[in-house]
Structures are given as structure tokens and as C-alpha cells.
């Protein structure tokens, strides 16, 4: 029982960066733009957020910086694909390569300047990131640990996912966004400013991805900078968008399931299932591939795939 609770708590922790990445990418894809640069945007967010945290020792500032960095990298993507109508896949892949390279470069550059040879976040900020404790609630048996023991990131992520779900399904801005992703020509004819809607939501999505990135750099490795700290999570997030059927609410479930897969190796003793560790490392990617296969075979039910996903929109095209 105890180990199960520990496992679930760890799963939520491991799923949180995926949650940010997935929700960010859902907002992006709902504009009809497939941004394969999630990994890159998360890496840039991870790097900038970590460095701001390292120098200012301020948790809130670090998160804001990571969101701003993610938003900026999404802006690059938006300028290229929305305004200059570059190929979305190529642009996204390039952003990923650029983002990882940028983060590693800055990381090593600053690392080399430190006398100790390691980059470790100051005490103040690591304390702020630790699990919360609400007196009276966090002490409750089982529930306390399962619901009220996480890092603030987890709650921020869930709140963002819920707000996104409400935004998409119950507001006019969300309706406009969905219309742009489904049929930009129709949205344009209805007087929606297609370009502006695309920019705003792509940038917003990037900001959310950026926060997911800073979780990777600040929490996963216990506050120590290492290179490639996002490590492929961005790619899983892209696949999770399909798993979640483009719905932020499902993204919460999906990312925690994948979080569980990632931490499974620590909770299944070798004596029970004698698989090599590498098998567990492979598992999320294997399941991702399976999800893609299954979801492409699924025919029944409403598939929320935006009809104009991947197609750039040019009003005067003849």
C-alpha cells in the first residue's frame, strides 16, 4: 500500500512536465499549426528559467522567465510559419534542434564560469519548489499524500489545464480558436482575425511548454544543471496530444499515465520482473508508438483533430 502511494505520487511528479507540454501543444495545434518544436521550446524554457533562478534565487521569477522564453521561441515559430508560411514540420524540427543546442550551450558556458564546476540552485529556491504542506490537510492519511503533497508546479499545471479546457469549450475566444484550426477560410470570412488568433495561441502554447521545461531542469535532477535535461519529454507530449484527443482535461490523465510509465522501473523490483532497466526506459516511447497506431485505427466517435492542422493559410490564394 505504502509503495503504491509512493508510486502514484512519483507518477504525478514525473507526469507534470508532460502535462505542460501537452496542454501547450494542444493550444498550438488548435490553431491548425503543428509545432514539432515542443522539445526545443521546453529546452529553452528549462535553460532560461534555471539560470534566472540560479542568479536571482526567486522561484516566481524563474517560472515567469521560463514562460517568457518558451513564448519567445514559439514566436520564432509563429513568425516563420504564420507570416512567412514556412513548412510547419521543418520549422518545428529546426526549433527542436536549435532549442536543445541553445540550452546545452548556455548551460556549459555558465557551468565553466563557476568555481565548483557544478551548477546548483540556491537553497531558497529549492525550498520553494518542494512539496507543499497545508496544515490539517497534508497530514491526512493517504489523501494527504496523494492530493496535498506536491510541488507547486503540479497544481499550476492542473490549473492551467482546467483553464485551457474552459477556454476552449466555453468562451467565444475558444470558439474562434477552434474555427481557425478547423477552417481558417470560414473563420476569416466570419471576420475573425486569423493571424492574430494564431499568433496569440501559438505564443501562449509556447509559454506553457516553457514552464514544463523549467520543471525538467529544476526538479527532476534535484536542482543541479545537467545537459539534455528535457530528454525527449517534448516528443512524448506531442504524441500525448493525440492520446488526449486534443482535450486539455484528458491531457491531465494522459500525462500522469505516462508519468507512471516513466517511474515504473523504480517500483518494480528486479526479483519480480527480471527486465533490464533499459526496457523501462523504452516503455513510454513504445506506448507512444502504440497510442499512435491505435488512435489512427480508431474510427468511431468524434475525433477532435483540427481539420486544417499542418496547412498554412493564405487569404488570397487562388
Amino acid at each position: 500500500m505504502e509503495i503504491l502511494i509512493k508510486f502514484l505520487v512519483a507518477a504525478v511528479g514525473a507526469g507534470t512536465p508532460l502535462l505542460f507540454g501537452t496542454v501547450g501543444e494542444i493550444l498550438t495545434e488548435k490553431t491548425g499549426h503543428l509545432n514539432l518544436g515542443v522539445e526545443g521550446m521546453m529546452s529553452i524554457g528549462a535553460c532560461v528559467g534555471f539560470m534566472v533562478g540560479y542568479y536571482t534565487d526567486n522561484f516566481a521569477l524563474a517560472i515567469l522567465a521560463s514562460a517568457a522564453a518558451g513564448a519567445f521561441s514559439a514566436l520564432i515559430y509563429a513568425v516563420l510559419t504564420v507570416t512567412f508560411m514556412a513548412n510547419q514540420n521543418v520549422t518545428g524540427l529546426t526549433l527542436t534542434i536549435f532549442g536543445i543546442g541553445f540550452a546545452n550551450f548556455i548551460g556549459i558556458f555558465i557551468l565553466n564560469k563557476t568555481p565548483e564546476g557544478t551548477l546548483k540552485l540556491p537553497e531558497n529556491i529549492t525550498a520553494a519548489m518542494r512539496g507543499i504542506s497545508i496544515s490539517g490537510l497534508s497530514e491526512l492519511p493517504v489523501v494527504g499524500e496523494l492530493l496535498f503533497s506536491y510541488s507547486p508546479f503540479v497544481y499550476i499545471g492542473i490549473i492551467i489545464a482546467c483553464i485551457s479546457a474552459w477556454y476552449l469549450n466555453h468562451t467565444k475566444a475558444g470558439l474562434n480558436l477552434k474555427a481557425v484550426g478547423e477552417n481558417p477560410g470560414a473563420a476569416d470570412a466570419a471576420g475573425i482575425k486569423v493571424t492574430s488568433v494564431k499568433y496569440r495561441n501559438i505564443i501562449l502554447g509556447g509559454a506553457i511548454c516553457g514552464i514544463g521545461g523549467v520543471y525538467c531542469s529544476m526538479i527532476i535532477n534535484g536542482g543541479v544543471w545537467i545537459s539534455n535535461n528535457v530528454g525527449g519529454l517534448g516528443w512524448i507530449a506531442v504524441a500525448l496530444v493525440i492520446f488526449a484527443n486534443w482535450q486539455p482535461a484528458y491531457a491531465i490523465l494522459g500525462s500522469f499515465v505516462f508519468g507512471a510509465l516513466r517511474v515504473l522501473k523504480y517500483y518494480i523490483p528486479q526479483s519480480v520482473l527480471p527486465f533490464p532497466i533499459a526496457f523501462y526506459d523504452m516503455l513510454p516511447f513504445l506506448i507512444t508508438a502504440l497510442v499512435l497506431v491505435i488512435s489512427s485505427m480508431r474510427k468511431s466517435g468524434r475525433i477532435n483533430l483540427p481539420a486544417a492542422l499542418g496547412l498554412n493559410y493564405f487569404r488570397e490564394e487562388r
Partner: protein
Amino acid sequence: MGGHEYDRPFLYFERAGNIMAEQGKNLYAIECKKITKTFGQVVANDEIDLNVRYGEILALLGENGSGKTTLMNMLSGIYHPDSGQIFIGGKEVKINSPVDAMNLGIGMIHQHFKLVEAFPAMDNIILGTQGKKEKNKVTSEKIKAISQTYGLEIEPEKYVCEMSVSEKQTVEILKVLYKGAEILILDEPTAVLTPQETERLFQILRKMKEKGCAIIIITHKLQEVLAISDRVTILRKGKSIDTVETSSCDAQKLTELMVGRPVSLEIERPIMENRETILKVVDLTVNKSDGSKAIDDISFDIRKGEILGVAGVAGSGQKELCEAIAGLLPASKGAVLFNKENLLGKTPSEIIEKGVSMSFVPEDRLGMGLVASMGMTDNMLLKSYQKGKGPFISRKPARELADSLIKKLGIVTPGTETPVRLLSGGNVQKVLLGREIESSPSVLITAYPVRGLDINSSYTVYDLLNEQKKKNVAVMYIGEDLDVLLELSDRIMVLCHGKITGIVDAAKTTKEEIGMMMTGENRSEDKEKEAQA
């Protein structure tokens, strides 16, 4: 309409009427002066003048590429004119975006519907409106109120992807009315409707006219121009040629103005002797991918030296029927007998070798049959390269064929190697049809060969088909325009929801009768026969 109209930014008829009384009859809803628009080297609109009054229906007539749609796109803010002035209600305006157009009370109903398929009607209608999102019930009430005023029928909760073409058009009309449009522009609204649906649309338009709306309708069909409009403005090659009162005109005169020279509007129907059956379809059933029946147990035959017209609302199974005969779609039941040999189960290339040829012109015109980015030569090769021996392709015969088609059919193209997507719609269709005819088939199936073509090009296509008929080819012609079907075909078969609702002699039937059968009513004579039996 309740208090709704007070939200509207622009004049209603009552108000317009007052101003009209003050200023005399000079007030136009829209007045365009010397509008010019160029795309690169091409002058799409050359100093065009056009005007419409409130409470008037103006028809805009012109051949393909005469600049009708370009002009209307400028009024709805999608393009910007290079020069010229636009006046709305007497005031000069600049329309920079669809929002501007909407605020000026201009609503455009596009030829290809601008609807989000994944939304219900209601969401499509409120799309782009300002302010907070209301409760669905409130919106739904408002929509119902507007539809009652104009006699429209709609289910606000229904998803667009589940709607028929006519329902979708209703949503389009409601969309602009909901936003307070009183100047409506309809771009070829009847292209996809049955005669009954067209008549209903016209009733709606007349009602709008009564309420004081200014309406511009673009259409190719002269009968409709004569039926609905008050005045006609004719465009030719980007210039406005003339504006005439409809009552002083007939189809012949309008055609002359549009084409620039007298054109015969007769379609000949040569009668061929000894028409023996060459292709017999027996109890054919074809399923769609979702398991429902696209073609439901139909039987008919096609004879040598005749044109069998096929009428039906779009999506009644025409496409599946073509594909099943051509061997592209498997049939679940029945047989297609060609000279008493079953074609079902044979591959498309085997069927082509037997002499059954199909040319299907889909809505996007290029989708089936031609490769858009290849030149004419390569497109000719598509059908013949397998016959060549060895691994190499001989391009010479194909190039010669392409050259001969250009001469014979008057295809306008810079050269045989120019990608066909750069040709205009009419020329693309000539390439496709020409290639099919050149393979000298004994059965020619052609679907929508005149889709989107202007009068001149259409008549070239009809002549081509008649020429084949005279060579004793059996032609199956799937068409949209009932007037043409009636004149061109020997017999007309009507499809509705995958079933045949009747096969009639084209010389003896009427448009109304075909229209009734298209909506599912079996031919009255059949019923009488049944009653007698």
C-alpha cells in the same frame, strides 16, 4: 426580429426609404466606380462600374474568368482593389477586411461554403460576433426568430457535417443575416441545388428583397437570371459591358452580351439507329467505407449510340456508381455485364482495355484523372505507358497526342509541358475528356464534365459527347444542370440516396418531374402502372 435590428450598424429599409424619398432615387446600396484589380500580369477587373439599390436583386453575369468573383471578393474585404471607389449607402468606404464588410452590412455567401464542419449550425452562425458568449438557448431563440422572418428552416443544434447541401446554404444565409447584413452577395448559390431547392431559395431571396435588402447574385444559368433578377450587369474579360433591365431581355440577348457574339443555345440530339445494349448493370450494391449503402440494388443498361443522362442531388451515389463500373470500388452484390461478360472483380486496367473509359470531374476539378503538377504529355502517358515495351518510356507519341488535342479541342496552354494545374478549369477538363476520348472507348462514362465551365466551353464539351455518340459509343453523362440533361440525353436515369427513382425518356419528361424524382418520389407513371397491375 424584436429589438435585434437596433443593434445593426446600417440602414434598414424603412430608414433607407426615408433617405430615398429625400434624395430621390439616386441612393444606391452599393456603388462601385472604376474598380481595378490585377493579379501579377493578369488584369482581373478593369475599371468596373456596378450599382445596386435597396430592395433590388441584381444578377452579375459573365463567363469563367470574367472577374465576377474577384469583384465580389473586393466587396467582402477579401481582396483590396488597386484603384477605384466603393460607395455604400452613398458614403465612400474602404473595405479592408471581412470585418469591415460586415460592419457595413455586407454579407457574402461563397460558392464553396465557408462553414466549420465540426461545429453545430449555431456555432457557425455566431462565429465572429462580438461580445460575451450567450447561453445556447438564447442564441437558438434569436436564430429561430430570424429564420421565421425570412421563411428559413433550420435546426440550430445540428452539426454541419451531417447536413445536406441545401441545409448548409441555409446556415450560410443565416450567418450573414444574424450579423445584420442587408447587402447580400451570393456566388453561384444554385450550382448544387435541385430545382425545388432553387425555387425555395428564390422565394427566400424575394422575401429579403421585400424587406429591403440589396441582393447581388452571381450565376451561369440564364433561366435563373431571368427568373429572379431585376437588373443584370454583364462582365466580359474583366470589363463591365452593360447593365440592362431583366424585363427587356431574353436568354439569347444575355448570351450575346456575355460572349460578345451571337451563340446558338441549341444542343443537338442526333438520334442513332440500332441501339443495342452494350453495358448492363444488374442488382448492383456498393457499400461505403462506413458500411452504409452508397448504391442500393440498382439495375439499368446503357446502349450503343445513346447518351444516358444521370440526374441526382450531389452525393446520391453518382461517384460510387462510376467507381464501381470502372473497377475502383468493390461491389458487394450484383453484376456489371459488358457484352455479357462480368466486369466486377476485374482490375481497372483490364476494364480500360475492354474499352470502358471513365472521366470524373470532381469538385476540385483536378482530383481524379489528371496529375496537376505534370504537363499534358505526361498526363497522356498515364493511360498508355503500360503498353510500351521495355523499361523506357517513349514520350513522342504522347506528345503528338497532346499536340493534336490542343489543335482539335482548342486547348489554351503555353505548351505541352506546362503543368495542367496552371491551365484554366475549362482547359483542364478538355484535357481530361480529350484523353479519354482518344483511347476510343466503347463506353464513355463522364461525370460533371462541364462543372464550373462557362457557356462557350460547355457547348464544346456537349459537341464532343455528341460526336462520340455518333460513333456509336455508349455515353453515360452524369450532370448537374437539368436543362442540359433534358436536351442532351436520350434517356435520363434519376438517382436518389443510391436508388434509381426512375428512368425516363428525355424528350417526354419535364424538369419538374425529374426534380421530384431527385427528392425520392418515384415516377408518377410507374405508380399508375402499379395501381393498374
